[in-house]
Structure formats: structure tokens, C-alpha cells
């Protein structure tokens, strides 16, 4: 199955998709105003990178890339837990999630 994929779809396509995902993430990270969307953009970037990892791992028959993906996913999960907690705390304190309006350094 995997060899079928590798044969059918060239590596470059995966990388292209990965770059598109990552760039979408970066753009979302920079221009979106809602904190949750910004947060989701970060996840998008991480998963774009993950895609490159598995693609290269497949290409070179190397398991390290796949292992690394697990690490990234684990960190992303932890980050999601902490990040969402922060977002809830921010919302409680400021009653808004618009990043442009959360610019005071103290409460």
C-alpha cells in the first residue's frame, strides 16, 4: 500500500502540499484576529511539517522521521491543553478573544 503510494505520487507533491499547509498556517497566524484561529493556525503549521516528515521517511525508508512525528504530535497535544487553558483564562479576564485588543501587559 505504502509502496503503491510512493510509486504513484512523487515526493515533490507531498512537499508541495506540506509547504501549502505551512504557508496557510503562517498567514493565518499573522492575519487572523481571533485567538482560537491563531491557535489553530499553529496546529496547521505543525501538521504541515509533519507531512514532510512522513513523506521523507517513506522516501528514504527511514523510521526516524515517523518517530519524530509522534514527538511533534505529543508536543502539540500538550501545547493544545496549555494553550486552550490560557485562552479560557484570557477570555474570563478580558471578555474578548480579539488579539488586537489584548495588548495590555498587566491586568
Amino acid at each position, binding site marked *: 500500500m505504502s509502496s503503491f503510494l510512493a510509486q504513484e505520487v512523487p515526493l515533490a507533491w507531498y512537499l508541495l502540499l506540506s509547504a501549502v499547509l505551512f504557508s496557510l498556517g*503562517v498567514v493565518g*497566524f*499573522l492575519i487572523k484576529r481571533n*485567538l482560537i484561529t*491563531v491557535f489553530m493556525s499553529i496546529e496547521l503549521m505543525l501538521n504541515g511539517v509533519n507531512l514532510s516528515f512522513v513523506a521523507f521517511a517513506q522516501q528514504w525508508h527511514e523510521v526516524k522521521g515517523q518517530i519524530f512525528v509522534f514527538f511533534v504530535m505529543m508536543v502539540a497535544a500538550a501545547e493544545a491543553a496549555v494553550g486552550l487553558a490560557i485562552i479560557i483564562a484570557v477570555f474570563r479576564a478580558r471578555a474578548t478573544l480579539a*488579539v*488586537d485588543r*489584548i*495588548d*495590555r*501587559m498587566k491586568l
Partner: protein
Amino acid sequence: MNVSLHLWLIPLLPFAGFLINGILGRRLPKWLVTTVALIAPLGSFLLVLWNTLAAFAPIEIIAWNGPGPLPRELTRMPWVETCPFTWISAGALHIDFSFVLDQLSLVMLLVVTGVGFLIHVYSVGYMKDDEGYARFFSYLNLFLFFMTVLVLAGNALLMFVGWEGVGLASYLLIGFYFQKKSAADAGKKAFIVNRIGDFGFLIAMFLLVANFGTLTFSEIATKLAYPGWQGGVVTVIGLCLLLGAAGKSAQLPLYIWLPDAMEGPTPVSALIHAATMVTAGIYMVARTHVLFDHSPFALGVVATIGALTALFAATIALVQNDIKRVLAYSTISQLGYMFLGCGVAAYSAAIFHLVTHAFFKALLFLAAGAVIHSIGGEQDLRKMGGLWKKLPITFAVTTAGVLAIAGFPPFAGFFSKDAILYSAFLQGAGGKILWFAGVVTALLTSFYMFRLWYLAFLGESRSKDVHPHESPWTMRGPLLILAALSVCGGWIGIENVGNFMAPSVGALATDAGSASLEHMLMVVAVAAALLGWYIADRLYRQKPAQPAELATTYPESYKLLANKYFVDEFYGAAVVKPLLNLSKYFLEWVVEIGILGGAAWLIGGIANFAGTILQRWQSGNLRSYAAWLAAGAAAVLLFPLLQSVMFPIIHHMYIYRWGH
């Protein structure tokens, strides 16, 4: 290397006493403080005594008598003990914690611990009602610790540790009554003047390391034995050492601290500023005598300074009215004798005088302390008088001390002073001048000591309202022992001392078949002492009004002497005042406010300015942070891209356009 460390117990016992009394003394009962304070020096003294016996006894007796089997080398001096770990190891320079017991350090140790113990006992009575009882004894024990380290040290650096340590103990004890400004100032003065001498000692050590690569005394001696070491750098080292010795032993021009040091309690004056610490300079010269032996010039300077100091201090002592100050100037003068002895290479004679001087000067100070103690703290000779009836024992022991210092046979001072004068006389034409200065000093010494004797003890009492009383036994006991030593201490004779000390300080020069010359010189010296006594007798017993008349007849000379030649005033104007002005005007206004303050202001200003610019970055706007983050990441990515893609392209375009 042997690892038997019983020599280390000699300094460590007083150190333990210092720790116990210094840390716990305030909470311990008085009898316990006393016990601890006395056991430490007594233990050290017994150890030294045991070493002395071991040094003299045949090997079989030691093996039979000592605790456990002893190494046979014990009878061999110098007996070196090195701590098993290295102290300093830098390149070729190795310095160990090593102690050396030879004839020189043995004699010195006997004096330091023996006289030291007696003075500890005396202090029990003298300081009985003092609030700082435990503090006083912890300082005394600390002093003994450093002094024994100084004496036992096998290299110059370890000696320097002891040297600085006794300076510290001296400072603490001079300023013992630190609530009194004069005492605190005197302590500071002693410390600062000593620092000038220490500077010389340090320079000498640097030169020793640079030229000999070692600070161990025995190695220096070995290297000096090679031909080619004469004058030059050895002279410079000798003169630097002399500066150190002059500071510690109160010689010209650094003697000024010793008279002021009398602010300390009297036992301190006896122990530190008469018997032991101030003789450290003489000990140091004797310890490094190989250097001086290779430099006749340095030796000549030692002798000249010694003779000048002896004469100079004796003239000041003539007119002092404070009993302790008379004794202080007399100490300076006697130390000058010892330097004179060292300067004519008669080291064993100098050490002999050091020992007898320790006996009679400690005695005189302790007796003066007993007098002061008994009449309620009065130190002015003019307010004493007629004390012989009230204080018979003190009077008797003082008489022994006065006769000893004046150099009458058969008292101790006669033998040692005579040995120094005789050795000086043998040193050619210059030696005759030194000898003459010594004889004049002997006359003056005899005069001022009998003046003290007449003023304090004889005549009519000049104070009505005090009731003198004899001191307790803890004070009288040491006085009697020291008096006995002042009488008998010289009977051992310079020949025996010279022979015993020869292995460590070299043999005494003697003029073969000159017994008649020696006797003639003795007669001259005793005649000078008798003349001094006669003048004192005329002035202070037969015609008590005459001293005042003399003072009014020759007001200039009297003023000059009474004000100690205005040396303190001169130093104040020439050294202290310029230094103070320098710190006040140059250091405070230019360096402190101008340079340091300006630099602080400049650096602070730069940081402040940078902060006002950079704080705009910290806007709190999350998206601006995100943009900087993305820009940074892009820059990091762009750099290798430029490097690997753009630069080669530019390079190729360049070549295409301009050729190589």
C-alpha cells in the same frame, strides 16, 4: 618526608585556646576561661621543653623516656616537619607547610612560650576585674599561636603568615580598650606603620623567588653557597628584609608605633611589645643571616641603624614622665643593641641579648604594671615616689631588673650587652664607632632606669590619697621567677650560647688571646653604667630640684627631648597630611566624583537611552510579536538560500561581466 607532626601541637594548642575562649568565653565560667587560657601556653611550653631535653639528651634516654618509640633523628637538628599536603605549587616554585626546629628556633620558642606562660599567669591577676577577661585571653592565645608559627616556619612565606598574625594580635591588644580613642588610634598606628615594613618583607620575598626560585631558608642557604652571590641583588634583598625587621622591631625610622602601643594593657606591653613580638625582626635577620653574610653593605646598614636607634631612643627616654613610655623607649633602645649585634654578624650575641632582654624587660613591665595596678592606674612618675615601703617585693624585683638592664655584673644584661659590645669592637674602625655609641647608650640606659627607680620607689610619696597594696600571688609569682631569671639568666655565658647556636647562625668571631681586651671593654661598660647611676643619684636623690633647673637652663634641648625630637609631628606633616590632602582633594573630587561618578552616569545614561528606544518593541500586541517571529524565521531561512543560490549567481555574473 616524615609525617610526625608533634611540632604542630606547639602552635595549635594556643590556637585551640583562642577558639574556645574567643567563641564561648563570654558564656563560660571564669575559672574555666582561666584554665583554658593557661593550659594552652603551658602545654606548648612543656612541648618545647621536651624538645629541648630531647635535643640534649643521648638517644638511649629519649628512647627510654619518651612516649612510644621515637625516630633517632630527633637528636639531629635541624628537625624538619612538613605537612603531607602542598600549600602552593606554581611551576618550579613549591611551598610547603614546613616547620623547622633548630638551635635558633628552639631558643626563641623557649622564650616565647616560657615568658609567654608567665605573663599569662600574671594577667590572671592583672585582668581579674576586667569585663573583657575572656576576650583578652583569647587574643593572648592567638598571639602565641602566630608567634610560634613565625618562629617555627621553615620558609619565608609561612613566617610571613606568623608575621602578619602577630601584627593582628598586637593591633587587637593595643586597641583592647577600644572605647578609648587614643587606644584605638594607637592600634591603627601600629598596624599601618607595620604595613610599611611588611611591604619591604614582601618585596624581599618576590626577589627571593625571582633569583633563587625558593622561599625555603635551607634551600636559599644551599644556593647562596655557590660562588658568585655577593652584593648586588643580595644587598637589595637584605635591605628589604631590614625594612620589614625595622617595622616589626621598632627601629629607625619606623619605631614611632611602639611608644603609642603602651595604650594596651600592661601584660600586653610586656609580652608583645617588649619580650617577644618586637624581637621578631631580630629573629628574622638571624634566620636569614646567610643573605646578610653575603652582603657586607646590608650588614653595615643593620649595624648603623641599630646603633643609631639605641642612642636615639635612649636620649628620648631620659625625660619621659610616663613609666610605661620610659620602658617603651628603653625597649626600642635595647632592640637597637640587638640589631647592632646582628649587624656585626654576632647573631648569637644578639639572640643572647634578646633572651636576657625578654627576662628583664618583661620583668620591668610587669613590675610597672604591678605599681600602676596598686596605685589606682596612675602612670606618671612625678606622682609616685616612696613606694619601696609599701611594695617591697615589687621594689626588689624592679631593682633586679634595673641592675640587669643597666648592665651591672652579675646580672643578666651585663653578659649579653658585653658580648654585643665586644663583637662590635672587633669589627675594625667602624666597629669602634659602633662600640662607642653602644657604651654611651649604656650610660644613658643606666641613667634613665635609675631615674625611674628613684622617682617611683625612693624619696617621699608625692601623692597623698592612694593606699598602695601589694599585688596578688598570681602577679607576684611570675615577677619572682622573672627576677630570678634576670639575675641568673646571663650566667650561661656567651661562649656556651655561641657554641650552641653556631650550627644555625654561624660561629662568633673572636680575637684569639684577647681576654685582656675583653676585660678592659667590660670595665669601660660597667664604668659607663656606674656613671649613669651616679648622675641619676645626684639629680634625683641628692638634689631633687636640679632636674627642673636643668630643664629651664636648657629649654631648647629639653623641649626637643620631651617632644621626642618632633618625629611624630614631622611624619604628620611630611607623610600623613599630604596623603590626607591627596585623598581629600584629588581622590575624592577627581577620582571619586569625576571619574567614577562620571563613568557610572555615562553607563547608566546609555542603558537608559537604549531602553527608551527598545521599549517600543514591547508593545503588548500579539500580532506584532508574531510578525517579528515570522520575519526572524524568514531571515534565518533566507540566509542559507542567499549563500547557496544568490551568491554564486552574483559571482558568475561578475565573472561574466568583468572577467577574472
